[in-house]
Each structure stands twice: as C-alpha cells, then as structure tokens.
C-alpha cells in the first residue's frame, strides 16, 4: 500500500471537488457541533451541577446514623429510638477495627435552641439555625488555611459553611433583599453572633446559660451542614453537655475505607447491628445523575442521528462521485494502483471530510456552548449556579466527538469504497474512449 501516494491523491481530489464534498463536510460539521455541544453540556451538568448540588458521599465513605423507626403512613421518625443504635465512642472504636477502615470521624448536631444574628450590609438579620460540630482535622483538608479552624482563647469561634448555603444566599436571599451577590473569598472573616440556648421556634433551653458567642467564617467545605453552620466538634459537644440532656452520643459517624469494594461489608456489619447506613449508592446525586443522563442521553441520541444522516448523505455523495470518476479510477488502476488502494483513496477522502468536519464542528460546539453560557449569564442565580459551570470541555469529549464523526464518515464511505475497488478499469477507460 503506497499510503503516501494515496493520501496525496485523496487530498488533491478533495481540493478539486470541494464543492461536491461541501455538503458532506457540512453534515459532518453539524453532527460534530451538536454532539460536542450536548456532550459538553452533559459533562458540565454532571460535574458542575449534579455533583455539586446533589453531593453524595465519596465511593470509599459511608455515613452511619442512628436507626429510624418509621411508622409507615404517618411518617413519624424518631432517631436513636432502638436499642443498640447509639453512636458513641465504643461504636467509633469498633468501626475503626473493621477491615479496610482508614479513619472514623464523628459529627454532632447542636441539640438545643440556637439562633444566628448579625449585620449584613448595614441591616440586622437573625434566624434560627442548624449547627453541627466536626473535628478540625477532618475539615482542615478542605480549608485553604486549616489552622484557622481551631478554637483560640479570647478569639471568635471559627465557623465553616457549605458552598450550597452561599448559592442559596446568592440565588434567593440576596435578590429578594436587594443585597449584592458574594463570592467565597469576600466572605472569609465575616463575623456573626450565635445566641446559645434560645431560638424563635424552640424558645428557651431548659438548661444552660443563654449567651452570645461571636463566630468568624474561616472557610467553605462540602462536609459542612448543608444549610447551617459547622463548628469545632468539641465546642458543640461541650454546649450539648451544658444545654441538652443526652450528650454522649454523636449524630453521625463517617468511616473512610481504603477501596470502594470494602464498603458493602462494613455496611452489612453496621446494618446487622441496627444502624442506618448511607453510601454513595443511596444519594440524591445518583438519582439526579440518572435523570440528567436520561435527558442528555436523548439529546446525544439526536446528535448521533444527525451523524448517521450525515454518514448516509456522504455515502450517496461518494457513490455518485465514484461513478462520475470511474475513468480517473481506471487511469490510476492502469498506472499500477491496486483495488485496495482505490478503496483506501475513497476512505481517505471521507476521512479528510470527517476530520475537517470534526475539527470545525468541535470548534462550533465549543463556541455554541460558550455563547449559550454568555446568554444565560444574565439569569445566573448564584455563583455556583453560574452558567459558566453548565458546560465542561475535558479533552476526552473532543477525542470522542472526533472519533465518532470520523467513524461515521468512514462508515458512510464503506460502500463507495467497495464500488471504487470493484471499478473495472477496462470498462472505465473504454467508456472514456468511446
């Protein structure tokens, strides 16, 4: 196979018959553009929306909470009701001993009335609050300045919030109250007060001394409670001892394992003991992801249909061209070309069209995505909901788009290539001579 000669000839042919190839090129371009557009949308939504807003546990982590007692239709749920479902240090140590467990960390929830007050852009605000406690060493890995999540004598209490809270603020609270939107960086150092032992809905705690504690926002973490404030674990534990009756158990335990395959064994072990276990498989992210998959899958199917039609279009065009160029094929055969080289010639011509269409289509797909993002930017409902996050362009989607477009065009060129290979040079040259 003289691939160099065939390639040069294919390039010549495409150049000379560019108008003829234009329709096929446009089809491949459209297919590539639509495919890349929806692929990038699919990946972007999955990566930046589903995974961010429907965050599940990592594959190697499970969350243990006290078993619920569900009264069916009444939907009454009471945590920690069953015997043996207490999350305490004994259980924490027992989990730590299980095979594959790297670490176990605890989360505790503030179990008494608490509210938050502060001044936002010159206006006072106050609200009841959900607060949790996490060990500093667990949150440290998410913070830019890990040492700031430490309790310091005389200083404000460090607090961490979830990024989703920021999104809620930017998306709903700020527009409703006429406040400007805020970014993570600008919020670091923001100070507010917690009123311990008193809330609007919960009233006053039966125990403990109602007081104000000043807090300072030191970072954002996805481990923080979704809508609320996360504080150092020992501080919350101390408050619970002061304000609540039961104070030895945790609200949840998290176990990190070495590999995802070990999760199910630990889960079975814990469930047999009456605990409620949540893993990556149970989360909302998975359900949201499946919904997104179904929707984007439909669009991807449309893209593939366009590609299929473009391949069919190319097949007709190339078949017509092979018929028209029979004398030329006869000439190449007379000059020493093999049947295989004639087939490869047609495939290469299709490949050139497919490759060019794939590249241009990919560029158009990216531009389309970026254009739509720009268009949607005025509808942004929060930093994390920003349309910039709707499209993602990892290298593999370019490779996949290019590969699919090229495959489609080559598939379309298959039968015309066979026609070229079977062209009888004698008949072809005779028809020219006649």
């Amino acid at each position, binding site marked *: 196979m*003289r691939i160099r*000669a065939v390639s*040069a*000839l294919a390039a*010549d042919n495409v150049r*000379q018959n560019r108008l003829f190839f234009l329709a096929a090129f446009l089809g491949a371009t459209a297919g590539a553009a639509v495919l890349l557009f929806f692929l990038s949308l699919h990946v972007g939504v999955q990566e930046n929306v589903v995974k961010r807003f429907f965050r599940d546990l990592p594959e190697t982590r499970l969350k243990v909470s006290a078993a619920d007692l569900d009264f069916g239709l009444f939907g009454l749920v009471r945590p920690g009701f069953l015997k043996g479902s207490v999350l305490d240090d004994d259980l924490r140590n027992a989990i730590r001993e299980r095979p594959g467990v790297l670490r176990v960390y605890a989360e505790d929830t503030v179990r008494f009335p608490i509210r938050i007050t502060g001044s936002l852009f010159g206006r006072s605000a106050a609200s009841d609050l959900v607060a949790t406690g996490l060990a500093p060493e667990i949150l440290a890995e998410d913070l830019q300045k890990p040492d700031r999540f430490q309790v310091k004598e005389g200083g404000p209490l460090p607090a961490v919030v979830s990024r989703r809270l920021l999104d809620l603020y930017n998306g709903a609270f700020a527009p409703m109250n006429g406040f400007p939107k805020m970014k993570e960086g600008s919020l670091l150092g923001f100070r507010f007060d917690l009123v311990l032992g008193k809330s609007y809905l919960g009233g006053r705690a039966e125990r403990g001394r109602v007081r104000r504690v000043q807090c300072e926002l030191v970072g954002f973490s996805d481990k923080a409670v979704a809508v609320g404030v996360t504080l150092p674990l020992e501080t919350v534990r101390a408050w619970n001892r002061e304000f609540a009756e039961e104070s030895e158990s945790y609200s949840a335990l998290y176990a990190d394992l070495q590999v995802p395959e070990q999760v199910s064994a630990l889960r079975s072990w814990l469930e047999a003991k009456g605990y409620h276990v949540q893993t990556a498989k149970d989360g909302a992210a998975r359900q949201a992801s499946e919904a997104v998959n179904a929707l984007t899958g439909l669009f991807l199917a449309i893209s593939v249909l366009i590609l299929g039609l473009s391949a069919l279009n190319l097949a007709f065009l190339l078949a017509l061209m092979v018929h028209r160029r029979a*004398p*030329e094929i*006869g*000439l*190449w*055969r*007379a*000059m*020493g*070309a*093999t*049947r*295989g*080289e004639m087939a490869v010639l047609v495939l290469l011509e299709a490949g050139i069209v497919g490759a060019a269409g794939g590249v241009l289509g990919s560029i158009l797909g990216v531009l389309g995505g970026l254009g739509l993002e720009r268009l949607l930017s005025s509808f942004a409902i929060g930093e994390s909901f920003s349309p910039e996050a709707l499209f993602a362009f990892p290298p593999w989607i370019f490779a996949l788009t290019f590969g699919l477009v090229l495959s489609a065009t080559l598939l379309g060129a298959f039968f015309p290539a066979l026609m070229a290979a079977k062209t009888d*040079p*004698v008949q072809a*040259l*005779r028809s*020219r*001579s006649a």
Partner: protein
Amino acid sequence: MPFIQVENLVKSYPRRGEPSGADGRTNRSAGLGQTVLNELSFSMESNEFTALFGASGSGKSTLLHILGGLDGDFQGRVTVDGLELSGAGDRELSGLRGHTVGFVLQSPFFLSYLDALQNIVRASRFGSRPADETRARTLLEDVGLKDFAHRFPDELSGGQLQRLALARAMASEPKLLLLDEPTGNLDLETAENLVRLLSRFHEAGGTLLVATHDERVARACRRRLVLQDGRIGEAL
C-alpha cells in the same frame, strides 16, 4: 523464455441480457456469449517492436488489456516478463502495470484540472518509479512538449495529448509499451513524430506492441501480427 507468451487464450463477452457465467456472476471467459479471442497463441521477445492489425472489434484492445494486466478474466495461459497473469492476484497485476507496462490509448484520459507536467507527476505516483517534476520535464522534452508543461489538457491538440500520454506511460520506465491506435486521430506530421518517439523507445531497449490500422506505424515495426476470428497470425 519469451518476454510475452500467450497460449490458448480465450476471451468471451456476454451478450446483452445473457448471464455472464455459469455462476451467473463474472466468468465471462467461460465460453458463453461472444468469443473475441479464441485459442489464441503467440509470443514476443524482449525489445520487439510489433504491430497488431485487425478489423474493428477483432479483439486488439482486449488483447492489450489482458497483456497489460487490466483484464484478468480470461482462459488460457498468458505470461508477461515472467509473470503468469492467469493466476496472478490484483497486487501482482497492479505491480505489472506499475512496473513493467505502459499504456497509451486512442483517446487517453487526463485529469482536466492538472497541467501537463502534473498529469505526469501525479499519474506516476502508483508506478514503481514515481517521476518528480524534473524527470517529468525531461519526459515532456523527449516528446516535444517542453513548452507545454503548464498547459492544461483542454489547451492541447490531439497530437499533443497523444505525446503527453506517451510521456506519462514512460514515466515509470516500463519495459513494455502497449499502444491502442495511438495515431488514430492524428494528422500525418504528428503521427510521424509519434512514430519516431516510439522508435526511440524501441532503440533504447523497450518492447512495443501497437494495435493499429496505420501503415505508417506498421512500417516502423519489425514484426506484424494480424488478429482475425479470434486468432493471431503473422502478416506478410
């Protein structure tokens, strides 16, 4: 061994509407239809310059196509330059065309979008010795088209096109030139020029088989064959 050895060559074409072979597919030489070459046998030595006469439709072009490896659908034994064509595959036949044989047809086909020079360069890509532009210019000079290198086919006369076809056929330095009525459309002077070029190829050691009705061509040939009723014979 002769340069060309043909033994009992049979070639038939199906009549219109008639099945082309026993298997209903491609075997057109199986005896069905119109027999063009019938138990034809002859041989040619290397460096022969042979004219092939015959009436229109006598099978001259068919014989040239078979000898040049363009048509592999025949019965009998045909050997060219040591290659047995009857059992050869596409690769061997293509190798023969690209390495050993050069064709010049009565109405040669050229790529209209390429000039004379590029028609030689591009067409020789599939030959065993692809011609670069320098060699293509030399070939054009040899056939008297030095000043027409950048003319396009539709800017050349019939004689010039025939000479261009000859230059193209010689680009891969073939041992054998097969020519089908090369002077059929040419005036006297142009035809004589072409014959001179063929003679030069012959003097350089080449072998030629020219299907022709033209006595001027025949006069330049050392040997004359006549194809009649599907068989071949020596002409006086």
